């Protein structure tokens, strides 16, 4: 009896030891699962971009359906922050400290992302592919933060260059959302124009809440701008073009990747978006590349029935492709340090977005954490079709 007791005791302690080793592996990773979190506005003013988070969800479902990554399935935890930074922070903390996330994916918006950047970085929690092209993610670069979305700053440079060099425009103006997003565009346009010895003929700030765009159009008209960059949200961009049409002001409209979902833009402007040139960062919706076809199939299978196969939906897939690649390369022995090391090794990676390269962490090299640098330009055709104007381009 006594011997039995010793046996049971030693068995129990061995079991306990094994369990405690298991738990010590890495936060958010078990033998069979990996916890990944994301926030995204499903309600509120920016809800149109909420499809990013749903796209990621469908991608993860597809991966799990194929058997997961190295024998582990992804447990995806998405919550609605309504584009409200206070809610983002509360939600991230709750999931991180309650359930324990291995890493965070995407997350729409500069302001919501900024509210949790320090929190995640201080705890050394990886975050891949914030869904906003802000300079804040990489200046200064952070060891655990891998940006994918090309910089709005670069987009503005490329669009401006195209306007001046290819279209021969001399009077370029910008209407920009009066926040970090818009100001990144403004800075890029100014920088590029300076290279050609030009200046913006008008720079018109727009507040997010502005619904009456007549004063903005009047300023453009006064400046006689012959090309205008629209660095605002989709709804406001639509109203700008509409109001200008009503006031019979004609110009060459150009816009950011944010407004490059042409079928959507064409629809909400009742056709006025035709002829607008925009920068974009991913393949076009009707692309027949094998990856796009595969993802479209996953979309048909896993997405909700009223979901739309648009740029922002599959951007939610593209932003996390490098993350999945990193996890795959890390193998069974998945720790955050190992994951970061594998991410740094990703070069010349091509998913459905542009080429993605990272490099070993270097505090003075912002591009060690900026994955995609290239975009290409498209023009909106009838019924929201795309005409490709350029190949993939990087700013000078």
């Amino acid at each position, binding site marked *: 009896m006594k011997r039995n007791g010793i046996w049971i005791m030693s068995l129990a302690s061995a079991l306990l030891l094994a369990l405690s080793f298991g738990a010590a592996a890495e936060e958010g990773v078990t033998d069979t699962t990996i916890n990944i979190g994301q926030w995204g506005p499903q309600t509120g003013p920016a809800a149109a971009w909420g499809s990013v988070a749903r796209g990621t969800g469908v991608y993860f479902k597809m991966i799990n359906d194929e058997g997961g990554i190295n024998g582990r399935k992804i447990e995806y935890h998405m919550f609605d922050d309504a584009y409200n930074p206070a809610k983002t922070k509360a939600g991230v903390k709750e999931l991180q400290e309650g359930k324990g996330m291995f890493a965070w994916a995407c997350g729409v918006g500069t302001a919501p992302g900024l509210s949790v950047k320090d929190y995640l970085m201080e705890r050394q929690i990886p975050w891949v592919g914030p869904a906003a092209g802000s300079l804040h993610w990489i200046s200064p670069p952070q060891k655990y933060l891998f940006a994918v979305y090309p910089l709005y700053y670069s987009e503005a440079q490329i669009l401006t260059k195209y306007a001046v060099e290819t279209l021969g425009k001399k009077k370029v103006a910008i209407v920009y959302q009066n926040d970090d997003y818009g100001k990144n565009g403004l800075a890029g346009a100014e920088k590029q124009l300076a290279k050609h010895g030009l200046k913006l003929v008008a720079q018109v700030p727009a507040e997010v809440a502005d619904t009456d765009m007549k004063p903005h159009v009047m300023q453009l008209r006064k400046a006689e701008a012959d090309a205008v960059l629209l660095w605002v949200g989709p709804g406001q961009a639509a109203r700008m073009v509409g109001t200008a*049409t009503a006031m019979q002001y004609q110009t060459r409209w150009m816009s950011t990747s944010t407004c490059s979902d042409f079928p959507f833009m064409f629809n909400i402007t009742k056709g006025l978006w035709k002829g607008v040139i925009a920068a974009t960062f991913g393949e076009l919706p009707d692309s027949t590349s094998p990856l796009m076809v595969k993802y479209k199939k996953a979309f048909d299978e896993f997405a909700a029935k009223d979901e739309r196969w648009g740029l922002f939906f599959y951007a939610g897939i593209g932003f996390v492709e490098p993350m999945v690649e990193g996890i795959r390369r890390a193998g069974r022995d998945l720790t955050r340090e190992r994951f970061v090391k594998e991410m740094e090794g990703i070069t010349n990676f091509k998913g459905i977005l542009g080429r993605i390269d990272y490099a070993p962490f270097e505090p003075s090299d912002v591009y060690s954490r900026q994955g995609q640098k290239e975009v290409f330009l498209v023009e909106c055709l009838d019924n929201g079709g795309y005409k490709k104007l350029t190949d993939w381009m990087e700013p000078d």
Partner: protein
Amino acid sequence: MTDFLQMIASGIAVGSSYALMGLAMVIIYKTSEVVNFAQGEMALLSLFLTYMVLEFHGVPYYVAFPGALLFAVFLGCFLEFAVLRRAKEPNVLGMIIITIGLEMILMGFVSWKFGADQKTMPFPIGPYESVAIGEVFVSSLEVLTFITAIVLMTILFLFFRYSKLGVAMKATQQNSMAARLMGIKTKRILMITWGISSLVGCTAGLLIAPTTMQPYMMWDPMLKGFAAAVMGGMTSLPGSVFGAYLIGIIENLFGGYISIEFKSVVAFFIIVLVLCVKPSGLFARHFVKKV
């Protein structure tokens, strides 16, 4: 000079939709002293249902739009009957909180049912067609909104001044106990008020929806309409309309000549100023209860 005239015209144009929202809020305030923050979202629900029948069920305009207005009246009456009337020991503050709750519920419902993507309401007049008066451009839709606002204001003004029901509504606000003693069915009056107010709000929404349609669309017009109503004195129908046009014009002039950045907030700054100088608003002859 053209610029100046254009700014005035634009100000009047944008003021018209504020005016309609302002009118809607004043109607409820006039009878119950409740500021209805659900005003915009009540219209929102009617609008999205209208969008649904127009876009997916092929119902023609001449059925869908009157249908929307009828539904709005019903919704207004229903909310008053089913929610506000049920409040225990009602006071004005409690009622206002209830309307904020309703606002959230309605907005949440619309977001859930229809999604948050921007949509466009089919409308007989193209939202970006314009009329030129000399070198000043106004969109046809804005002309329609302007006419609607003025006509509705006149009808409502006459209704409150001369009709039996209108006078009963006024009496209910000023002293509901006395009104009840005089044989006025004050509860029914309140319900009708909500119905009429919802109708006016829905009209505003129908005129806004062709240019912008998403679950958030009514918030800004509602706030500006409220601001206009406060400026006009909260109980005066012409006052709220005048306030709305004033806000629209000032916004545009400020945006054009001083700073486009602060265009949207200048309205609220002016309201603070007005309230400091004339606390009951520019036009109010507020009824003072005798003790």
